[in-house]
């Protein structure tokens, strides 16, 4: 099929369960201009170079054609994921102070006990069940509870936040289909509501601080100063959304992959100490973020003999790079002991995932707790039903059932 339709085929929901043959086609074709004027990159070394290239912007105001930019990115205050240095760097540094080293080295490690308790509690609840939905019963509630605890979001507000998050994700969905306009509008409204919510919560924490990250963020004043209210709203919303949607996919993909490959399953059941490596391999083999749709060259850029013009939408297909045979041995094989594994699961370069250490800890603890429970279970359907998004790609449900 014509290489110009690759992006359309990748985003087509019919290919959500197995986009990997399309990614192989993409790598074969090299950098390809799509019918809609965007450029797709799926080879490892090219993606790595672009993620480290200061001429490649994450700020969509640099798009030549604003209609290629999701509505919410066109006006309101952007979070640092959508900004370039030096602004990105300033905001990320301020957000990092209450989150990790050097200023707060113990914050994530201190969450381990909490994460273990939450995870064991969830598993207890389905101990006697014969049918489980890994997403609803486990992979979703865990990271949401953890990110709310980290930020200091009260438990009772979680359903509201879930509804907003779903609308936000639907609003940035690039799957071809109807009601795009209304989906985008609903997404923008939800984001605004979430921003207001985070702004109000920050005001409360300013008056009545507790030991959460948001309280630290509003009281802290380091060398880069403090966040304005608008910056706080954008940063809080980013952390809340980025902090759980992806981790759900990672845990779910873990359960799915272990049930598909009994050898890997047995290895991890017998040697839980291999889990950190296995999580890295999951991030390579079934990454929660399949593509980064938001990059734009600030000048004409040559990528393996193709010139991508300034201002064009540049789409980096991380999940294709993760299976590039020029970079990884036997890339379509899930090998939980793989040594050389510098994957793109968390991106790379200045925007590499802020929350990676937390996501790792969560996934390692969650999967080590889940593995013994999977012993007598099998997948009820394979492939499972997928969520719509080709960007944050993962199962919507993962029904499993007791054997016999």
């Amino acid at each position, binding site marked *: 099929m014509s290489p110009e339709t690759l992006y359309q085929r990748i985003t087509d929901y019919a290919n959500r369960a197995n986009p990997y043959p399309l990614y192989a086609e993409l790598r074969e074709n090299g950098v390809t201009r799509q019918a809609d004027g965007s450029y797709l990159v799926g080879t490892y070394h090219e993606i790595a170079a672009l993620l480290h290239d200061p001429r490649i912007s994450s700020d969509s105001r640099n798009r030549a054609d604003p209609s290629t930019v999701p509505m919410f990115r066109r006006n309101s205050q952007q979070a640092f994921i959508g900004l370039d240095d030096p602004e990105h760097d300033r905001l990320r540094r301020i957000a990092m102070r209450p989150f*990790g*080293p*050097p200023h707060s*080295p*113990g914050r*994530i*490690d201190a969450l381990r006990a909490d994460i273990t308790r939450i995870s064991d509690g969830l598993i207890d609840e389905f101990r006697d069940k014969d049918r489980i939905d890994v997403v609803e019963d486990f992979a979703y509630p865990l990271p949401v509870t953890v990110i709310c605890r980290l930020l200091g979001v009260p438990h009772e507000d979680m359903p509201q936040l879930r509804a907003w998050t779903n609308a936000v994700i639907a609003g940035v969905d690039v799957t071809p289909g109807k009601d795009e306009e209304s989906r985008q509008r609903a997404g923008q409204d939800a984001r605004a509501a979430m921003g207001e919510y985070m702004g109000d919560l920050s005001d409360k924490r300013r008056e009545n601080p507790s030991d959460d990250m948001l309280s630290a963020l509003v009281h802290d004043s380091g060398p880069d100063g403090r966040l304005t209210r608008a910056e706080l709203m954008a940063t809080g919303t980013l952390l809340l959304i980025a902090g759980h949607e992806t981790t759900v996919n990672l845990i779910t993909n873990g359960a799915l992959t272990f049930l598909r490959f009994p050898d890997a399953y047995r290895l991890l059941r017998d040697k839980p*100490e291999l889990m*950190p*490596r296995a999580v*890295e391999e999951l991030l390579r083999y079934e990454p929660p973020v399949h593509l980064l749709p938001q990059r734009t060259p600030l000048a004409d850029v040559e990528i393996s003999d193709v010139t991508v013009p300034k201002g064009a939408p540049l789409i980096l297909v991380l999940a294709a790079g993760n299976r590039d045979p020029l970079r990884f041995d036997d890339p379509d094989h899930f090998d939980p002991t793989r*040594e*050389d*594994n*510098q994957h793109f699961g*968390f991106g790379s370069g200045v925007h*590499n995932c802020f929350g*990676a*250490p*937390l996501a*790792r*800890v969560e996934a*390692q603890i969650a999967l080590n707790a889940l593995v013994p429970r999977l012993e007598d279970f099998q997948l009820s359907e394979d492939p499972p039903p997928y969520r719509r998004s080709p960007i944050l790609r993962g199962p919507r449900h993962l029904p499993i059932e007791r054997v016999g």
Partner: protein
Amino acid sequence: MQIVVDLNRCQAYAQCAFLAPQVFELHGEEALMFTPTVPDDQHEHVRRAAAACPVQAILVGERAGP
């Protein structure tokens, strides 16, 4: 347990400093400091940090004896 960090590979992603904060410390934005002889209660932490280092810069050696 002994560790060595290959500082030619280390790109200061600081994963180790999150995962084993008692052993790996960031000084300023870039410089990584670590305790080469790992205290007993930190072995698990260090193994997890070594596994998560994106460039596999942390070399862990088990040494017998005292």
